């Protein structure tokens, strides 16, 4: 029994000892190598699609890129994406206002007041709402707002549907950021006799601002990128957005991708890829901004 160990001790070139399970060491080394190789392969497999997506969009859109795509309105012969870009910006602005109000308010309540059973019910409800498929939200928006309230395809229906979808992200981000604010800040504000609303605005929320802004940026990214909730609430139009709450459809970028990509005409396919490129650039800019916000907050925290 002890002979393998003895021989391995006896000098160079001898066999190495078996491990506790009686396996030769080369098998363990092989398993190590194979394991890490598989993991590296997984990393490569994860990276390939992203590179391929970005390359596919940029490589198709850039060669024929015209800057006037950004402001020319769409026509039956092609034209540009001006009204879609403006429509997306209007929708995003509305979502920031509506979902921002609800989401930040909700986050404050969840962090400062909600405890025990009520808190976990509210929190679970909000998180589960974010998991409801966006097409289901869009369909309900269609049934309840477009048909039910006779708003027809409109900015209002689109805004409310998207806000329901995005508010939970803002709430979660706000709540997490507020929980990071030290209790001593709140106690200090109390001790100075500040009114709660005032203390929240000037002290607590101010300290949590980077988290709140990150949540808003996530909501903006979703509002820019979603299609399913808008298809049957915003409708679509080539005209510039009218800013009316009801009865006027709005054009938006993702619709251009979705509706032009399988048209026979190359002009429209090009527009589809142009719209995709604009969307990707918007998302990249948002990610850069949110990273900058977080980095800035980190520097401030270190200095304090």
């Amino acid at each position, binding site marked *: 029994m002890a002979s393998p160990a003895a021989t391995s001790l006896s000098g160079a070139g001898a066999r190495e000892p078996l491990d506790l399970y009686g396996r030769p060491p080369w098998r363990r080394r092989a398993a*190590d190598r194979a*394991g*890490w190789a*598989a*993991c*590296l392969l*997984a990393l490569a497999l*994860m990276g390939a*699609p*992203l590179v391929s*997506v970005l390359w*596919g*969009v940029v490589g198709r859109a850039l060669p024929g890129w015209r800057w006037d795509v950004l402001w020319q309105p769409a026509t039956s012969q092609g034209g540009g994406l001006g009204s879609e870009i403006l429509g997306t910006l209007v929708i995003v602005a509305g979502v920031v206002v509506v979902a921002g109000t*609800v989401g*930040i*308010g909700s986050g404050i*309540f*969840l962090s400062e*007041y909600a405890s025990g059973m009520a808190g976990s019910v*509210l929190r*679970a409800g*909000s*998180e*589960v*709402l974010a*998991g*409801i*498929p966006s*097409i*289901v939200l869009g*369909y*309900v928006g269609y*049934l309840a707002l477009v048909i039910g309230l006779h708003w027809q395809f409109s900015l209002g229906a689109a805004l409310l549907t998207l806000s*329901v979808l995005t*508010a*939970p*992200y803002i*709430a979660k981000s706000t709540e*997490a950021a507020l929980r990071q604010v030290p209790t001593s800040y709140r106690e200090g504000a109390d001790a100075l*006799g*500040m009114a*709660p*609303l005032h203390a929240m605005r000037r002290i607590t929320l101010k300290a949590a601002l980077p988290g709140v802004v990150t949540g808003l940026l996530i909501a903006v*990214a*979703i509002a820019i*990128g*979603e*299609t*399913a909730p808008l298809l049957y609430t915003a409708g679509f139009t080539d005209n510039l957005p009218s800013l009316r709450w009801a009865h006027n459809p709005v054009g938006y970028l*993702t619709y251009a*991708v*979705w509706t032009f*990509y*399988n048209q026979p005409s190359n002009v429209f396919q090009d527009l*589809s*890829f142009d719209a995709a490129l604009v969307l*990707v650039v918007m*998302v*990249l800019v948002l*990610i850069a901004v949110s990273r900058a916000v977080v980095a800035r907050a980190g520097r401030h925290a270190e200095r304090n």
Partner: protein
Amino acid sequence: MPKAQRIPMARQPSAVATAKGQVQPGPKWAGRAVATAARNLARSGWLLRGATGAAALVPVVALAGILAVLAERAWPAIVYNGLGFFTHVAWDPGSSYGNPVRTGGALHQAGATFGALPLILGTLGSSAIAIVVAVPVSVGAALVVVEKLPPRMANVLGLFLEVLAGIPSVVFGLWGALSFGPLIARDLAPLVARHVPDLPVLNFFRGSTGNGEGLLTAGLVLAVMVVPIVASTTRDLLRQVPALPKEGARALGLSDWEVSRLVSLPWARSGIIGASLLGLARALGETMAVAMVSGAFLGANPSNIYLPFTTIAATIVSQLDSAFTDGTGFYVRALAEAALVLAVITLVANVAARLLVRKAGGVALPVGRGI
């Protein structure tokens, strides 16, 4: 500095004075009492608490409202379709040229049949492919990044996952329809279909390989979209594995790989399962990307994994236009029933994910799509 000035102090006679001026008819003390009460109300935090509480109720009310609206709209369809909705394969909105028929109080086109079995199976099947592919890839990638690569690389991976999570689903659809799908039809599908052994069990993987629009393509595109949720959660979990058990294992002579496999992964297991369920919910509900690569094949199950199919979400998007043209409105109700089924399926996956992780304790799952 105006800062100190802005803090409202308890003694501020001006407020009382104005209130006294405003409240004309009553005696003096009444005006003062109203002003004091208003000020006390503001100072008690009731305002902040009430307003934010109302905001916090909005998501819960919205969730209940969504399910209620769907159920109310779908009810006649639920009654008419019965259990056949889950077992029938045929999907036929009926003839719009004949006279509408009334069955059990619901007006619908003659010969309307709504069998959602292919939709439900397509939803579950494409999501299953997505999870089977995405989870091992995500866990493996997170493992090598956390345990082996330098922290700078881990940072790059974070950026990478953010971009992947942020890319709109129509862009994935565009990529799937015009570059990835054709690639699969040209290279991957024929290769696999030719080499799968000729066994009856594996018939689903053999045969005609189609044009790239189908179950396999949709599943793989969904896998790409699920990866950010699972990978980012797994990375966060692996970073939180306590150092002591890992060092102990290493002191016992285990290698890096064995420590990862026997200590880190088991520690993170329930969180990874939770994140996978969350990714599953995301895949089940994904609409645009699937609608663009599925081939939108209604009315039958695909005969193999490469052929066109459809999901509940993709059907709602592709069929709502025709549903508008149904004068009886019954098609819209049938789609509402499909949407209700989808909502319930994703709800179950979401709640299961959160319960599982709550039981494991301590780890927060990301909201929705994990960004």
